[in-house]
């Protein structure tokens, strides 16, 4: 009897148009609220007396839904494809979901003429960003570089951040608050490098950066807590310099790009499918021209993969961009380099006006918050680069390499406590420690935006705009970054930055 009732229940679901027959079967056996009788099953799944109209509404809605799915344009397919896979086709695939990748996605979406005109997919292999350079960075921005391109990139990025809510505001969402500390950078130079600092100062001023030079006495007057032994000249940023929260910037870019229609996929790029065109020069050399047809994405923790057919690929993979380029046979001189950051607590330390101090020995430190906390670090020498297989922190490094210089420069920091530490990767350009932006001569449709060696975050808005201009308009319109292209790597002409951290 219960089986029959269940059959009737199914029939009722399928054709809600025959209530009379179903009621006739069940009626004699039930009370209004479904009391147990000998002939009824113990199921409590649905009331036996049901309203015809409510069910009709449900049925109609379900039918409408099915009709909508069947129309072209919906993502439904009768084969029941897995929803968690990346899409099969995309116009631009951005490999790397860090701040550079999302900045490029935002700017491409900003520059598309028609809404939904360009399908942009951002691939990120680790949604928790546990090893991403963006979130582990100290978050500083400065205009004190020696290369004009770097200065312009920093200034444009600061200008972007000044008006960040006008750029990245999403309707009815909270405004973006970068927590930008306007404390400036302070570079110290000894006798030998003072002339380099002066030349850099002239270049920076010519591009409109607000920097001032201080002598040792002026430095002592302004910052009495600095020990000015050995300092010949100091360069102090007055405006548009400081540090901010990298996570907020990343999330702001991501939120706006997603709201404009970019897509995010979780997965790792394991392979490319490309076509090769081999040409022979007049001298008889072979020149291979490759064109990427599709990107093979392996979904994390799964055996599934998907080939995304794409028109262009952007390599914004940060520290792992070298590995990605190697899949195509290109040698990109970018590799991960581990850098440590130590959080210190010193109640007697310098106060609210502490700038981001960088000593000529390479040691740097800055204030963090209001409770007497600071973060400090330094770049190790070439020969003693730490192992990059994991992000473990070496505390010995602090005691040997960081603390002595820090204590000698700022006597108040002699008594401090290391409360915590972390490590992050630089996407270190072993060639000349400056970013690589542009196309590679032997790959037609792969754009590079990597190798920034510690300056990626501060240049990200401007780099995103530059790469978007390159893709959407064909060449650089706002800042000319052709000097940061691949040409200098192939022709072995390094564009070195003097005094980098």
């Amino acid at each position, binding site marked *: 009897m219960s089986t029959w009732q269940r059959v009737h229940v199914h029939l009722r679901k399928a054709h809600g148009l025959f209530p009379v027959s179903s009621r006739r079967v069940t009626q004699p056996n039930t009370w209004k609220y479904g009391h147990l009788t000998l002939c009824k099953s113990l199921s409590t799944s649905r009331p036996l007396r049901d309203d015809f109209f409510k069910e009709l509404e449900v049925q109609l809605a379900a039918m409408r839904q099915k009709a909508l799915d069947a129309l072209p344009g919906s993502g439904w397919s009768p084969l029941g494809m897995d929803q968690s896979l990346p899409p099969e086709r995309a116009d631009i695939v951005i490999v790397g979901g860090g701040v550079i990748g999302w900045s490029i996605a935002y700017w491409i979406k900003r520059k598309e003429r028609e809404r939904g005109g360009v399908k942009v997919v951002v691939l990120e292999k680790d949604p928790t960003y546990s090893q991403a350079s963006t979130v582990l960075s100290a978050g500083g921005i400065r205009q004190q570089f020696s290369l004009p391109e770097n200065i312009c990139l920093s200034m444009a990025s600061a200008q972007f951040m000044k008006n960040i809510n006008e750029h990245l505001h*999403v309707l009815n969402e909270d405004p973006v608050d970068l927590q930008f500390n306007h404390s400036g950078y302070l570079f110290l130079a000894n006798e030998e490098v003072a002339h380099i600092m002066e030349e850099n100062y002239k270049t920076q001023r010519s591009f409109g950066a607000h920097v001032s030079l201080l002598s040792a006495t002026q430095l002592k007057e302004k910052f009495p807590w600095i020990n000015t032994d050995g300092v010949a000249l100091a360069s102090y940023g007055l405006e548009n310099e400081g540090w901010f929260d990298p996570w907020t910037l990343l999330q702001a870019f991501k939120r706006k790009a997603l709201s404009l229609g970019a*897509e995010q996929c979780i997965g790792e790029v394991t392979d490319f499918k490309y076509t090769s065109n081999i040409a022979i020069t007049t001298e008889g050399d072979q020149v291979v021209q490759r064109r990427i047809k599709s990107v093979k994405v392996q979904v994390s923790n799964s055996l599934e993969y998907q080939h995304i057919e794409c028109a262009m690929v952007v390599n914004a993979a940060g520290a792992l961009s070298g590995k990605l380029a190697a899949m195509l046979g290109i040698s990109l001189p970018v590799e991960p380099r581990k850098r440590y950051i130590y959080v210190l607590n010193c109640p007697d330390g310098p106060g*609210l006006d502490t700038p981001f101090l960088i000593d000529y020995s390479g040691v740097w430190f800055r204030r963090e918050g209001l409770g007497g906390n600071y973060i400090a670090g330094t770049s190790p020498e070439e020969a003693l680069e730490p192992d990059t297989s994991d992000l473990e922190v070496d505390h010995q490094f602090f005691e040997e390499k960081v603390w002595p210089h820090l204590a000698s420069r700022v006597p108040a920091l002699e008594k401090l406590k290391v409360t915590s530490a972390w490590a992050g990767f630089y996407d270190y350009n072993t060639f000349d420690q400056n970013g690589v932006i542009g196309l590679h001569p032997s790959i037609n449709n792969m754009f590079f935006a990597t190798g920034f060696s510690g300056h990626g975050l501060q240049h990200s808005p401007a780099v995103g705009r530059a790469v978007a201009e390159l893709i959407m308009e064909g060449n650089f319109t706002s800042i000319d970054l052709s000097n940061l292209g691949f040409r200098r790597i192939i022709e072995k002409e390094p564009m070195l930055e003097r005094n980098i951290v």
Partner: protein
Amino acid sequence: MSAPFMSLYRCYQRSALLVVSRRSLSSVSPASSVSPPSSVSPPSSVSPSSSVSPASSVSPASSVSPPSSVSPPSSVSPASSVSPPSSVSPASSVSPLSSVSPASSVSPPSSESPPSSVSPPSSESPPSSVSPPPLHTRFLLYLTQCFYDVEMLQSWSFLQRWKWVQKRNTYYGYTEKNYGSNIASAYYILSLKGGFRFVGQSEWFIADRRSKFNWAFLDHQNTPLEEVNMNYTDINYRGLDNLEVQKSLRTLSLRGCPEVNDWFLARLHMFEDSLEELDISHCPRITTCGLAALRNLKGLKRLDVSSLHGISSPGMVIILLEEMLPRCNVTANGYEHTLREES
């Protein structure tokens, strides 16, 4: 076709598109749930609200929840038992209006802020209030989520407000070319309904409520400005271009200016030699990070930082400010320095 019918049709279209997009991309980014689902959603966008369980759509806390969506569970549960889990969230199949409520139930902070196109967003979001926002706010939010055109109009009006402020603060190059930089600064201040006083004079030139002022300031082309009062005006960082040449500015009063933020304070270093008195009280957008930018004003004698609601721990910040500017007299009223009981 009549206009109401068209908009109604578009309502169904818009909600239908929302339904389709959620279905096709429901699992694309489960991890991107940091941001509440934005209402700016073209068909191919991701709205994480698909991961919201049907139970939450029935929650009474949702701001835009027309009574029909909080319908008796019996109408919702059969639908949920029928449809397989991979399809669209069942609440949307009940009625088109309830497709809005899952989206809105996840976003209480955004619904609390009134139409953000109208009021300038403060740096610190208002604490979450218990009472739901007023009816017109909820209605506007509902309309924004239903119609692309309303959403477009709202984002357009938000941008227009910013453009208007930028326009008011442009560089008065024409005035500067024809009358000199002092007159340009003076004219800029008066256009923004501020007031100023020349060096060596005791007469103030102030623009009144109807923007009328005394044109006699044109006689003093070579006199720089000494005191500037820009209380409750729309001055922003760009407006400082007009005041940059005033190297003998002694007093600057910026009380209650809605557009004065940290970037503005960072630009004040141009007055580091001469500025003695600065009043930035009641400016909602200033935060702690911006107060650190006052480090360059070593000659400052009086600083007023009262009632800055953007700074998080005012007591601590005032102490650090006093340490940073030793020769300065810092006034900080309007803060509650009471100890809060730990519950």
